């Protein structure tokens, strides 16, 4: 008897359950059920800002972008002569300054590079480290911040051979904090408080330590091209009067593994201490140069993801 009632009860419940189920399915037909919502709230993910700039330079200045881990970036920077030299030099195209660089991402945060410029026969080496990455979502960070340091050795013959010349007199250093924010898909702005140290300067009227601030911005015109502008303000009274602040405007054009940067600038040197403290061109007089940077990347090492 007991068993019978139990079975009866069970069947009854089953019928009710079936009825409920039928109701539920009937509902499915009228209102669409979002199956994925059954999994509950999605776990928030950290969304890092990528491609704040198209490449590792804004124009002359380093950007917060690095070569990714295991990627070799072969880079040729080229500046023609001043446009106001006129038709004789074909508006500067007869004259050329260049820097050739090999730059490598040790991991996604740390990159190193070496380069050689024919301007003053200078070799340079640099290290750049991503300290903070702009992000939204789970972890929030309003800006990306990178540390940049470079050393330059000038290899021209000594001007004054009558005095004792030390190798250290050939050395120059530059340290920068690169602070950038990608405001939206198009606009990114970077600030760069900078100090340049020069072991040897002309005389005591100029400083060994030069404080400056760079500002750079890019605005995307299409998905693969952008308009860039960059200015370096050197606090007054630190460098010779013949030197002026660096101002450059240009375009980035990206084609697969290449980035072409075409620009007009009043700076001939292409390393940091050079364009920050030794810019001679004047925009008012048309003493500016056409130039380009070409970057070609090669994946040579194994890709390493940075730790969260």
């Amino acid at each position: 008897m007991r068993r019978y009632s139990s079975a009866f009860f069970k069947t009854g419940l089953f019928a009710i359950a079936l009825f409920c189920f039928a109701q539920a399915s009937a509902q499915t037909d009228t209102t669409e059920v979002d199956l994925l919502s059954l999994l509950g709230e999605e776990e928030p993910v950290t969304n890092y800002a990528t491609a704040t700039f198209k490449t590792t330079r804004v124009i002359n200045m380093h950007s917060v972008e690095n070569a990714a881990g295991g990627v070799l970036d072969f880079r040729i920077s080229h500046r023609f002569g001043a446009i106001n030299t006129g038709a004789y030099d074909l508006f500067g195209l007869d004259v050329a300054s260049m820097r050739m660089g090999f730059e490598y991402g040790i991991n996604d945060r740390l990159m190193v590079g070496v380069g050689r410029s024919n301007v003053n026969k200078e070799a340079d080496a640099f290290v750049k480290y991503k300290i903070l990455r702009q992000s939204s979502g789970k972890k929030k960070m309003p800006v990306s911040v990178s540390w940049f340091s470079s050393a330059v050795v000038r290899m021209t013959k000594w001007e004054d051979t009558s005095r004792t010349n030390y190798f250290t007199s050939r050395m120059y250093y530059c340290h920068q904090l690169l602070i950038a924010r990608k405001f939206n898909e198009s606009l990114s702005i970077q600030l760069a408080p900078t100090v340049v140290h020069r072991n040897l300067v002309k005389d005591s009227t100029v400083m060994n330590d030069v404080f400056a601030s760079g500002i750079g911005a890019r605005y995307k015109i299409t998905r693969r091209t952008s308009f860039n502008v960059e200015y370096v303000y050197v606090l007054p009274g630190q460098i010779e009067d013949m030197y002026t602040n660096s101002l450059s405007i240009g375009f980035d054009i990206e084609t697969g593994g290449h980035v072409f940067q075409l620009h007009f600038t009043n700076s001939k040197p292409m390393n940091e201490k050079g364009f920050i403290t030794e810019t001679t061109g004047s925009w008012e007089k048309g003493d500016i140069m056409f130039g380009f940077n070409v970057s070609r990347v090669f994946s040579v090492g194994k890709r390493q993801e940075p730790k969260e």
Partner: protein
Amino acid sequence: MAITALAVTSTTAQKYFTKEGNITFHAGTSVEDIDATNTTATCVIDAATGDMEWSVLVKGFKFKRALMEEHFNENYMESNTFPKSSFKGKIDNISSVKFTADGTYKVKVSGKLTMHGQTKDISTDGTITVKGGTITADSKFFVNPADFKIEVPATNKDKISNKVEIVVSANLAELKK
């Protein structure tokens, strides 16, 4: 008794899910390999109705080459604007799949695929494999980037296929509420 009854009900209306589904695509040509994998796709399948839904974060696709990944997100998928791709559809022959009996069941799936903000109807074949209580769903299909308004510049037309192969594979677990 009541518990038994509920158990019976829940078997009838069983749902399966994963948060670690694999989605791989091959978009390259003979000129260049373009492959990427995402291992965090989410999926829910309703065994009773055959309804299924997939969702995947576009930024979760990992490439061998970092620059390719950047271009994928920045220039092609525009993943900041369209962070997710999804599929909402149905297993048309769900009645032929026995989730409680071991076996490999061929299924036909149709529904709406949304990528890059564009939605398109697709249908494809797949298999559901039941083995010792574990359920695996597999499928393979092709999409044309142009159908989803993903522009390929003329210079890259020889590198990016107009028949991108998408391979989906997921181990599904019972969804307990």
